[in-house]
């Protein structure tokens, strides 16, 4: 992206946050990822693997509140 880190708040203010805007942003992000990693002539396992790893990481973040108790417990 061509936005510098210092300009980030200003740039974020110019973005479209309506539902339509968010939807089109998701669509654009998806298309960028798909066309770069999956929609290539000799794609391998990498494209799908990145998606799945991202999903695992996201699931861990979502479950962290629940899992942290298991780690701190003395008797399971």
């Amino acid at each position, binding site marked *: 992206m061509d936005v510098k880190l210092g300009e980030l708040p200003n740039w974020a203010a110019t973005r479209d946050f309506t539902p339509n805007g968010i939807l089109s942003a998701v669509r654009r992000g998806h298309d960028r990822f798909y066309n770069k990693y999956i929609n290539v*002539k000799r794609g391998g396992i990498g*494209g*799908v693997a990145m*998606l*799945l790893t991202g999903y*695992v990481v996201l*699931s861990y973040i979502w479950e962290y509140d*629940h*899992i942290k108790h298991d780690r701190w417990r003395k008797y*399971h």
Partner: protein
Amino acid sequence: MILSFFDQFMSPTHLGIPLIALALSLPWVLIPTPTNRWLNNRLLTLQGWFINRFTQQLMLPINLGGHKWAVLLTALMLLLITLNLLGLLPYTFTPTTQLSLNMGLAVPLWLATVIIGMRNQPTAALGHLLPEGTPVPLIPVLIIIETISLFIRPLALGVRLTANLTAGHLLIQLIATAAFMLLPMMHAVAILTSTVLFLLTLLKVAVAMIQAYVFVLLLSLYLQENV
């Protein structure tokens, strides 16, 4: 008693948003839509080949009236396979372990096959309740038995999927905990347990795929009888 083993099946929420909606929409992201191109990327080609073969195999025994169901059954199969296989990744949530979801899939579809049969060919549909060649004295009992078996089908469909997936998840968690705890103490036993864990994971992968297949196959069978 350790009650925390069942916590993995709780429907996750984050900041009040039920995450099951996100987990259910993930297969949509992973299965790309076909394009008009002649040569597609590898993922799309594989997917197209798989879907075509599956639909062809599924629709073989069903006569023409049932071919309307081809899209629905194939979509259902894809959804179940993706959901089941995604649930095998660490820390993920499998929506198909929730009985509510499986019953919600099983009951309407089964009911649709029954209603279609009753509307289009009521005599033949009712005739399924009595197998051919039964001795005359057995007829009343058998009709009751066949009616019960007809009504238990949606229950069986939903519970089968739930139970198989839940049992697999639980087993993996239990044996993984055992192997992890045994690792610092008895190394040989830990290696044995790890082998069992590995084999179990393979089994789970197979079960995940087979269960989806069985679900759809049985549904198509019910359709075949009734259409």
